């Protein structure tokens, strides 16, 4: 199978680009990029390709958006076509946390806990306006968007979003995963739980 080509614009940090806005082609790489060898870049792409096409999701289903999530899972829209087939109900086995529905204040420690339990690399999708911004629930009980407690990668608007929108969001997330830098291993220390 053919691996996707190296995409220069994805791997090059903003600071390394010369030539201003109109000519956004990287002509020189930064020190950092020089040190990344040819092999590592290809490895990163390969890993990105593999990761984006086998997304294991953890559906954190709370509310009405769950109905459209069910539709997106079922026969007609079939999210499995895009490599996100299997919901894993253990955060340890999941790559993608889908926040489907309203997050209220009582729920927020649970959500944070689930997010912390997931292993790196992990991505988060805010499914519906409630998870993105609180939606039209603006009162004492609700959190104004899941991004107030955990970082979010993709926002899917809609109340609830149609399944097509979800699939679109998934494709955008896949592009994002492809252009991120992936390493085979990391020397960083894992962050402590609950911090």
């Amino acid at each position: 199978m053919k691996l996707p080509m190296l995409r220069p614009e994805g791997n090059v940090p903003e600071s390394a680009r010369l030539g201003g806005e109109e000519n956004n082609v990287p002509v020189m790489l930064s020190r950092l990029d020089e040190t990344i060898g040819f092999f590592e870049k290809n490895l990163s792409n390969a890993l990105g390709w593999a990761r984006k096409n086998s997304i294991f999701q953890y559906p954190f289903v709370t509310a009405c958006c769950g109905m459209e999530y069910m539709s997106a899972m079922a026969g007609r829209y079939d999210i499995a076509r895009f490599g996100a087939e299997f919901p894993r109900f253990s955060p340890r086995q999941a790559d993608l946390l889908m926040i489907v529905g309203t997050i209220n204040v009582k729920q927020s420690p649970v959500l944070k806990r689930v997010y912390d339990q997931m292993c790196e690399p992990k991505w988060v999708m805010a499914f519906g306006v409630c998870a993105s911004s609180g939606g039209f629930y603006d009162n004492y009980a609700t959190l104004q968007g899941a991004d107030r407690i955990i970082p979010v990668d993709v926002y899917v608007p809609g109340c609830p979003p149609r399944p097509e929108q979800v699939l679109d969001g998934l494709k955008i997330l896949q592009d994002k995963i492809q252009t991120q830098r992936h390493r085979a291993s990391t020397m960083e220390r894992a962050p402590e739980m609950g911090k």
Partner: protein
Amino acid sequence: MSQALIELVRGKFPDATGSSHRGDEVVTVPRERVVEVIGFLRNDPAAEMKLLRQIAAVDVLTFRSETTGGGSIASIEAPAYALQKKPSVEPRYQVAYNLYSITRRQSLRVRVELRSDDMKVPTITGLFRTADWWERYIYDMFGVHFDGHPNLQRLMLYPEFVGYPLRKDYPVRKRQLLVPELDFPDLVRGPGPGPGGAGVPMSQTHVGRANVDPNTYD
């Protein structure tokens, strides 16, 4: 439909007052009698009200003074002005028990009025099992104490929550967070109040994150 029901209750309990609005019959009873009255309605063969549909409560604090409705943001603040104008109404709370008889197809509402300095009602969990959660719900939202309830704790909200949200003097957007919010330096959260709002990145707001108490902004 069943003016007869009010007569029935008033025949047994002369201190109850009856009223009717758009076909809904209501009897208002003194607080001490509520268990007696509901027990009577449950067991009397002419009433047979075996189904407790709902317990609801109303805070009448701004019932008369509330200015106007409207779709604009300003209307959200309207109760606040009303509160300044007219601080107290007594008796301030009403608890309503909506009862129904499946066999006789008739319904009745039993209402109790409470003063805000003495918010205690005897529990009816001994009569209806379902009253358990309804009473907890009313306690959670209005702070009405149900004397003798086996497990009177918050139902929907969390123990850390201070205050009772459905009281009219509780601000709509007063949140009491359990998890501190993240601080993204350049997150723009679109128009609206709050840190990072109004299109200004959070790092550039003159308020500064440190000065904002997450519980008070709205």
